[in-house]
């Protein structure tokens, strides 16, 4: 399970995002930590080499 942020880490993440939340909003957000971590756990798994973003950009004559 991905780590759940403590109060200090939450403040850092919010500051880094530029979000200014009041104490009630922070408390509300904390109620999602476990559900969000469970969601992340479903995608944060080892994957094969075909599982990459692999942009092809759709090059056309205009790129030449």
């Amino acid at each position, binding site marked *: 399970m*991905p780590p759940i*942020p403590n109060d200090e880490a939450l403040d850092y*993440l*919010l500051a*880094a*995002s*530029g*979000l*200014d*939340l009041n104490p009630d*909003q922070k408390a*509300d*957000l904390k*109620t*999602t*930590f476990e*559900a*969000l971590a*469970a*969601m*992340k756990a*479903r*995608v*944060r*798994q080892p*994957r*094969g080499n*075909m*599982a*990459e*973003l*692999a942009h092809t950009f759709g090059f056309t004559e205009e790129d030449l």
Partner: protein
Amino acid sequence: MIPTMAEAARLIAAKKLSPVELTKACLERVHAMDGTLHAFVLLTEERALAEARAAEAEIMRSGPRGPMHGIPIGLKDIVDTKGLRTASQSKILQENVPVADAACAVRLAAAGSVMMGKLTTHEFADGGPSFDLPAPPARNPWNPDHFTAGSSSGTGAAVASGMILCGIGTDTGGSIRGPAALCGIAGIKPTYGLVSRAGVAPAAFSLDHIGPMAWTAEDCAIMLQVLAGHDPRDPASADRPIPDYTAGLGSGLKGVRVGVIRHFHETDHKVAAPTQLGIGNTVSVLRDLGAQVVDVTLSPLQDWHACGSLISITERATAYEEWARTRLADFGERVQRRLMLGALVSGVDYVQAVRRRRELRAELQAAMRGLDIVITAGAPDEAPKMDAIPRWDVFAAPGFTMPFNVAGYPAICVCSGFGPGGLPVSVQMVGKPFQEATVLRVADAFEKATSFRDSRPAMVPQNVAAMAN
């Protein structure tokens, strides 16, 4: 009866139905019901009547341009309309008057449709129902105490109640198919890139789709014919030939191969008995019509939901980053919460979700080899009450629609019956990329073999509805 768009088009072409009278009948229904349903945020009555008169004059002079000529429609209020306020149900955009129409609005106008107004949406096509926005949320015509689903809530309510014959919805995780399911209509999310998103407010770039919502699958086919096509103003627009979406309707289902993703609705998120019954009946009807039916297994619904939700949270936080930093309090509470979540999803989380998406798409592609469509639920049950939607609905039980936003595959929800509360239940049919014609053909055959299109919500005034007979 209120005519379907196909019926109205035939009558208009035969000069047996006046677009002006049809528009007046729709307007009468708006005046009778919208005080309760709140499907419209902006009713453009004078414009509608003027467009109907112009359509009628042109049709009398030289015949209809096509089956949407003279047909009353509505546009979800995240669709730009030149000179008409497009507020996305947000305090932030109350003064926003676009200088140009969105691509889908241009196409519908060119087809000669009659624009009735702007339809209620959840704020920026997210969250809902919300009671802290500039306008109230739309309500379900089958029972106004109940939810329409969203975010194309006004389109769902307006089509089901016959205020319009069809309308534009948008779908990032189910916002066309959810309201279609709960309001008992048809709504198709086309293949990603088939319909231009130019001029429509984004929700999550790689999951956003524009599509038709109407009373029947046949009407969706007619509307999709108008909407589909390449547009260089949409960076994701697909440049490929557009087939005739109505050509195959009525040609039967002999040999059509159907997969049932049974574990989605029987195990991963067990649906209520009426929905289960509706899916079972759908399978029986399709078999009776000649289809071959097999079971299909995919990754658990929860994996699709997690993948789509993490991408959606991050892309939405990206699209609205500046306002989230500077005007967070001006969003409604539900959207504020979604934007707050963006701070908790890291770059690694997002890229891992995109990597998982690639795997899930490959899995669906492999599972559909040898099949034409797959089916599952559209929604778990009849519509819940308006006050029964969780505060953090993204963490509620996984929805049945998100997998096909993750994959980008076309998917339609149609009515598959009614529950004990008198509200509709639905089934979802999913096709391969750009195979909308097949999806619509199967959905149309199902609708025409059943009687679920025969009755409208009880609140629809029958005296007004009889106008087009």
